[in-house]
């Protein structure tokens, strides 16, 4: 059951970009299906039911919990996204560099979550760079510049805990820095 000390970070990106792996790498418990979290639903659903969305969590001090949600579904059936992001403190966008049009994916997701990103913040992780090196990180930076965004973007391997930690820390620091400093 959620309480007032619960927060959530949303992981999104195309299928296969590494959302499940990224969540697993930092979650206190192995990711589970949110289907299984719905209390009265649990008893009625088969254990092999397809996972609707990834879920992980981190227990923080003072009983607080950071929930980690991976967005469900494919791009053409994203009707759960606007519901899922409610109350989120930031977005982790994973882009798979091996896909046909990674810049198209980048643009699609930034646009799909535009309002949420404006209200909170986003960090971008590029996966699959070891398999397909182009576009390069420099080209992604240029693309973000073209889109008028100065958001953190990193080359990552979702299996590496360190990469996910860097992403989350950058997200947190950029959220803090969004608040203007006081001019004296």
């Amino acid at each position, binding site marked *: *059951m*959620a309480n007032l000390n619960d927060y959530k970070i949303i992981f999104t990106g195309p299928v296969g970009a590494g959302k499940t792996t990224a969540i697993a790498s*930092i979650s206190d418990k192995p990711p589970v299906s*949110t*289907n299984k979290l*719905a209390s009265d*639903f649990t008893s*009625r*659903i*088969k254990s092999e*039911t*397809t996972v*609707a*969305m990834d879920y992980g969590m*981190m227990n*923080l*001090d003072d009983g607080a919990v950071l929930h980690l949600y991976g967005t*469900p*579904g*494919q791009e*053409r*059936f*994203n*009707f*759960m996204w*606007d*519901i899922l992001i*409610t*109350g989120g*403190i930031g977005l982790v966008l994973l882009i798979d560099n091996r896909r046909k049009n990674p810049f198209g994916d980048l643009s699609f997701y930034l646009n*799909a979550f535009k309002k949420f990103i404006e209200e909170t913040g986003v960090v971008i*992780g590029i996966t699959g760079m070891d398999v397909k*090196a182009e576009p*390069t990180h*420099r080209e992604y930076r240029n693309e*973000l510049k073209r889109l008028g965004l*100065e*958001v*953190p*973007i*990193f*080359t990552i391997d979702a299996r590496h805990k360190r*990469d996910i*930690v*860097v*992403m*989350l*820390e*950058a997200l*947190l*620091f*950029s959220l*803090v*820095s969004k*608040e*203007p*400093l*006081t*001019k*004296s």
Partner: protein
Amino acid sequence: MWSPFKLICDPLKDTVLKIAVLGMSENTSSVFLYFMEKYFSEECQLVDPDDAQEFIVNFDSSRGKKQWKKLPQAKQLSAILVADTDPQKSGCQWLPKPLEGSKLVPAIRELIQNQEGSSDKKSEQHRPNKEPTPNTTPSGKLPVEMPQAEASLKKRSVGYSQKINEQSAIELDLSAGDIEDCCGKEDDAKYTDAKHIYYDDENTLLAPLKKAVQVARQEKCGVELSGASTSICIFPGGEEIYIELDDRVFRHFCIMPLSKGVNLQRTDVSKLQSQKMLANNKEHIHPAESIIWKIALWTSRGRLPKDIKIDQAIKMQFWPDFTRLQITPYALRITSLWISQSLSPLQVARFLEIPLRYVFAVASAAHSLEAISFENDDNRSVSIGSGRSSPNLFNNILRRLRVRG
């Protein structure tokens, strides 16, 4: 055929509208399942096609279209068809892709209302209260009140304005020796004159290396640096650099002034490729940005390049690729501040209440990647908050990441 729905048909809910999804993948079907359970749990239920009264069809799927065609005509006409373009089926509701929750909710509500309109008195007795459930709205808009977790999470302050004083997990990776090699060890009190604050990269390996990478990028050719203390080759395109010496040894050459000039020599690709092949140890081939960043740190050792003045406002143009770079203490928070604000190195150190050498190190490394822009507004000053001691969410998360990192 896969079906999660057989087990969830509750015989007691005989007035609940039974809906099936056709032509959807397993994952999308399970998302529908979650969606219906969460927002229409009292009014409708996902079931197998054989038990369904109404249908949501992926009309771009040949399987979905085929299944829809087999339905009795009355059921065909009341279906919700999800498709890229309007399939022009009269009587059906068309929802364009990408399917949005704000359009799906009213469409399902219309199905429910149609069902209620055609239901008999018996079913009315079973469900006397027709008011919308708390999870949905009569207007068909997305629910304002979110159930459980969402309700408690909505519109909550997370304390962004409070300062972060927790050490980053990644920053703690570094040994004291590494930190000293990258950031020096000078206390702020030692930065009293230009000699201690600034360095001129023209007298070091850094400047010719940056120039060589630029040439390799622009001319798409290989470049060799001769006259340096070790063999250094930049591969065509400037994305990779071969350095003969090991990091541990090489870092000490970076701080030494060059006794004589270093020459750039364009080299043919085959020679470099063979060199690359010969370099069995991959550690000698570095991504260009990663090694330039490191060399800038080792060269600066907590000093500023002479182009950047200690009280001059600067800004960072982009986030360096920190997952592939040496991260020095406070590097992420220094960067986040310089991305969002135009501030002098002095102001950054004061605002974050951290030693100057860490700020100078980041400024120097970012400058080497041409990430720094110079601002005219150099009279800015920031007030230093007093909230460092107050624990907040971000400190809390950082502590956990540190444990897990």
